[in-house]
């Protein structure tokens, strides 16, 4: 294992970073959107809706992602009806198969986190909003969703890191992401240790930056948890207003 080789390998692995980031972005946003729908179904009080959502979450969460990817990539092509349908140009591509499988997998984990966020929104907040005359979607948009996001974000950041790591499985359906390129370099240079250490470093950097970024967003979303600014307090006391 020599550092120079690791440095060179990191440079050549950089060409796989865009694909890894694309897959991660699709998985994280697709998972969040799909997960939000599932979570809404899960907290509804109609039995068919919440049973379906519960079953979906249980099944997807206990199936390995690799099975899901192969089921979509190899499995769907088995049916002539799919091969001749308008979906085939999409489902033929390993890229979209990986995206579908990753987003599906992410959605089940996201649904549970978002459900926790939705349930954490207090009864009082909702009552207050209703008293102000908000209803249905307006209540959801202005009160429930912002509060739920704030609550769910820390847990979802763990899930984001898991998704970035999970994109490495896309290399097993021929995609040349960071892991895919690393595997091909390792098989030609016979320096597996340096190459995989280099690839691991890239993932570590991506994940560190991602966690930092979420921390910043989290900080911005929770002004009420920060200790009051000294300047503010002085200004407030000058006007004879006590803050607490």
């Amino acid at each position, binding site marked *: 294992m020599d550092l120079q080789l690791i440095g060179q390998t990191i440079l050549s692995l950089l060409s796989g970073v865009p694909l890894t980031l694309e897959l991660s972005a699709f998985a994280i946003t697709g998972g969040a959107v799909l997960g939000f729908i599932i979570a809404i179904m899960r907290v509804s009080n109609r039995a068919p809706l919440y049973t379906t959502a519960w079953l979906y979450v249980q099944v997807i969460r206990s199936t390995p992602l690799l099975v899901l990817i192969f089921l979509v990539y190899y499995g769907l092509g088995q049916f002539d009806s799919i091969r001749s349908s308008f979906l085939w140009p999409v489902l033929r591509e390993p890229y979209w198969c990986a995206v579908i499988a990753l987003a599906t997998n992410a959605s089940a984990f996201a649904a549970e986190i978002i459900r926790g966020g939705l349930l954490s929104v207090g009864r009082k907040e909702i009552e207050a909003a209703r008293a102000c005359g908000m209803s249905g979607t307006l209540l959801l948009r202005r009160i429930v969703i912002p509060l739920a996001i704030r609550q769910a974000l820390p847990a979802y950041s763990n899930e984001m890191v898991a998704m970035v790591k999970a994109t490495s499985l896309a290399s097993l359906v021929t995609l040349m992401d960071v*892991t895919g390129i690393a595997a091909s370099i390792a098989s030609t240079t016979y320096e597996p240790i340096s190459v995989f250490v280099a690839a691991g470093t890239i993932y570590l950097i991506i994940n560190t930056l991602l966690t930092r970024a979420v921390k910043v967003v989290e900080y911005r979303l929770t002004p009420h948890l920060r200790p009051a600014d000294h300047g503010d307090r002085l200004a407030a006391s000058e006007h004879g207003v006590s803050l607490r």
Partner: protein
Amino acid sequence: MELARSLSLFGFGPDGWGSSLLAGTATTLAASFCGLLLSVFLGAFGASAKITGGPTARAIAEAYTTILRGVPELLVIFLLYFGSSAVLSSVAGLFQHQGFIALPGFAAGVLAIGVVEGAAMVEVFRGAFLAVKPGEIEAAKACGMNKLLRFRRIVAPLTMRHALPGIGNVWIALLKGSSLLSATGVAELMRRTEVAAGSTRLPFNFYLCAAAIYLTITVSSGLLFHVAERHYSRGIVRA
């Protein structure tokens, strides 16, 4: 008729893949279980380093959990599988042995998933130990128990109670992670499913079947963990 034919594919008859899938399931369970043992071992070490260790031990444990939780499992599997052969071959070269030596895929894979999930286990044990109330340990001291007895009778069972849900999650992760060993050719459930799917040209049926087997294992181990949790929580009044 069609249904009977497709069902016999999963049976144990001459053209059935049942026995192959069953053997694969056994390998999957064995790999996950060995991974669990390794991760419990690493987790206990890591947690004690983080809680009572000196600065060096703490730094090592911290680096271990940070790195292993930020790197894909598949990369760790590749690193240990291909990397171990590079190391072993060069070590063998020192002893005038020519040629290629590799760690068996199973051993390298178990090592990989055990090391990865060991990082998760460190946090599980650390959290569980910190959830044991200081008063309970003080009471044991007051009763005159020495350190070993205190650990065996008080700390270990109480930590276990708090750790069980976390251990259950890690076990599921190991089970699912073991499917990645197929990438290095270990004949576990996923690999055998790939072979069956390829030679029958019925990938959808076989991958669905694999999903069902994984689901069965996770659901039944969930039940087992529920029983274990009840065992370790006896004597606790639930609110």
